[in-house]
């Protein structure tokens, strides 16, 4: 399957029929993952009740035969987590695909050029200095200062990295990577320093840094999901630029792409989706790195398919991983995604030693 993709010109990509099949399968898997996530839990809510509660709340059908606590568990605890897993997983995987194409770097993930360090510094600062953001602002937004500052920190850091890397002749990819490294190091030092002086609050800091969907709630989603949704739409319509960039910047320019403008826009959109996701969940590793690689290996590098497939399969992976994390006694979901992701990544590395890339 891979061989046929490799011999086909990049811009043509897969056939319409196969794309439809891949995306339809992803949608079915996503519904299944959501169903499993909704039915499975650590309390005694019967899987049948979980479905009945969902139908009752969404469509108003059926009569109430369950205790109020079961409804709270399904509607206020499990469902927001599942939706958050979908939104964050889709955002991470598609941003990862964008950064891997944009930076032409197989190790690029959504956090590489500053999002993680910036969001972490924002969140940790908010945890340790609650007075940083006036209560009136967070009350108005309906979410905590931690979420607001994580979002702002992540987005602002990427914009700063971009500004640092930007020269008269544009923004070379290598400069962007190194600027990301430098700024991230600086901010990580800030995070480390804050952790060192955190004292009793250290546990709160650590649990944020490890990443979790446990704090997912409807108000948080109401703010983050539209931001991620908008960036999805604007990313999906840029598949042509991404495909062209895969060939190299000179070739992309020759194909009529305004390379510098597209780099700016793609970076801003991917950073927007990532930062909004981080605000919900903290940093969760490997989804953004592994899902695009997996899909590229299986279905080829055409972003017309790769972007929507990354969204779907990223959502599937994170919903399943989070369900596993919940059932395993609330361990951080990053541990589960890493347990799935790291062996795959090692395999990928080993494989790249044998088969030359591209």
């Amino acid at each position, binding site marked *: 399957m891979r061989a046929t993709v490799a011999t086909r010109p990049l811009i043509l990509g897969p056939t319409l029929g196969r794309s439809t099949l891949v995306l339809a399968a992803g949608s079915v898997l996503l519904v299944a993952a959501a169903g499993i996530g909704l039915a499975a839990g650590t309390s005694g809510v019967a899987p049948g009740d979980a479905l009945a509660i969902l139908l009752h709340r969404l469509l108003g059908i059926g009569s109430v035969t369950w205790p109020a606590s079961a409804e709270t568990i399904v509607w206020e605890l499990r469902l927001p987590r599942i939706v958050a897993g979908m939104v964050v997983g889709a955002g991470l995987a598609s941003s990862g695909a964008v950064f891997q194409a944009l930076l032409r770097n197989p190790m690029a993930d959504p956090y590489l050029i500053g999002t993680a360090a910036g969001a972490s510094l924002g969140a940790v600062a908010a945890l340790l200095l609650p007075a940083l953001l006036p209560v009136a602002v967070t009350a108005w937004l309906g979410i905590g200062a931690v979420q607001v500052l994580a979002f702002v920190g992540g987005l602002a850091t990427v914009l700063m990295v971009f500004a640092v890397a930007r020269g008269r002749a544009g923004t070379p990819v290598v400069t962007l990577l190194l600027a990301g490294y430098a700024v991230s190091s600086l901010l990580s030092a800030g995070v480390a320093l804050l952790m060192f002086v955190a004292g009793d609050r250290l546990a709160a800091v650590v649990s944020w*840094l490890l990443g979790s969907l446990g704090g997912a709630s409807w108000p948080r989603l109401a703010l983050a999901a539209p931001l991620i949704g908008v960036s999805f739409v604007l990313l999906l319509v840029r598949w042509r630029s991404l495909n062209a960039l895969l060939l190299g910047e000179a070739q992309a320019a020759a194909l009529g792409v305004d390379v510098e403008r597209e780099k700016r826009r793609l970076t801003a959109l991917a950073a927007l989706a990532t930062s909004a996701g981080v605000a919900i969940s903290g940093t969760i590793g490997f989804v953004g790195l592994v899902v695009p690689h997996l899909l590229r290996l299986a279905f080829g590098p055409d972003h017309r398919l790769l972007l929507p497939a990354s969204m779907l399969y990223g959502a599937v992976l994170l919903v399943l991983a989070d369900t596993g994390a919940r059932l395993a006694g609330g361990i951080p979901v990053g541990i589960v995604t890493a347990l799935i992701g790291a062996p795959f990544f090692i395999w990928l590395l080993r494989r790249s030693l044998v088969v030359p890339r591209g």
Partner: protein
Amino acid sequence: MAPRTLRLRAPLVAVALLALAATACATARPTAPASDSPDPVAASGLASASEAAPSGYPVTVTDARGTDVTIPAAPDRIVSLAPSNTEIVCALDACDRLVGVTDFDDYPPEVADVPDVVVSAQVDVERVVDARPDLVLAAGNELTPSSVIAQLEDLGLTVVVLYPESLDEVEGDIGLIGRILDEADAAASLVDGMRQRVAELTAAVDGLDRPRTLYEVYYAEGVTYTAGAGSFLASLIELAGGEPVTGDAQGTLPAEQLVTSDPELVLLGTASYDPSLATPAAALEAVASRPGWSTLSAVRDGAVLPYLDDIVTTRPGPRIVDGLEALARAIHPEAFE
């Protein structure tokens, strides 16, 4: 390209390692009393304990956060998120009202039959809700994460946070739970009994030499975690007739400061969890090989004791007086002959 891209992830890896290291520390010393922030519970709760507040609901109490919490009716489905809270509830004859506890709860024995809603120090919010509690007793100082407390309150649960940092505050919290449960008389007599025993114990060690006493909560990589300056544990050691060797507010005591403090008596609370330290000879040998420890007075005099009562000494519930007695007997065995 490959080596450089690998290096680019270094800061993330560093943060991750730091986070893991921090987790290890945080989980390793959950019992170290820390911080000396004022606690408004003590005064109000204590007063009502001894005066036996009039029963009748709603009852409003001020918890360790300084938050006024109103209890509309006598709670009969209680979730306890800390073993100390569980012990207070049971000491007030309300064990049968517990519908959720932690997997670390071991006293009184009948709580083994109550479902666990805290597993490996992680609050399982779904199980808390499933227990349909009308009262959740959480622990302060991030022992119950503040994000979890906020989540439980958002779900409409009544949460009271307790974090006693002294003997007075334990007594105050007993009074507070007594008011909440309409067991104010039982709370008052429990507190009276505790005070009487404390008076007897302090009288027994009164006037004796006060050895510089190091209580080891945890030891790793040259750093000892012990009683924090001004902490509950430090105050107990003082009451038990010792001069506490303390770390910083979190109880961290680097090796150089330990050598400077030169404890005359070392109590290994870690022996409660590490069977290899259970005998005095093994304990002495183990600590003597730590860098810098061989010069300590306690080590040279062989005054290094496995201390097996860590739980009652560091769990701020009604049995804290048992912990005080265990400390006094360890520091001044001669006073109890």
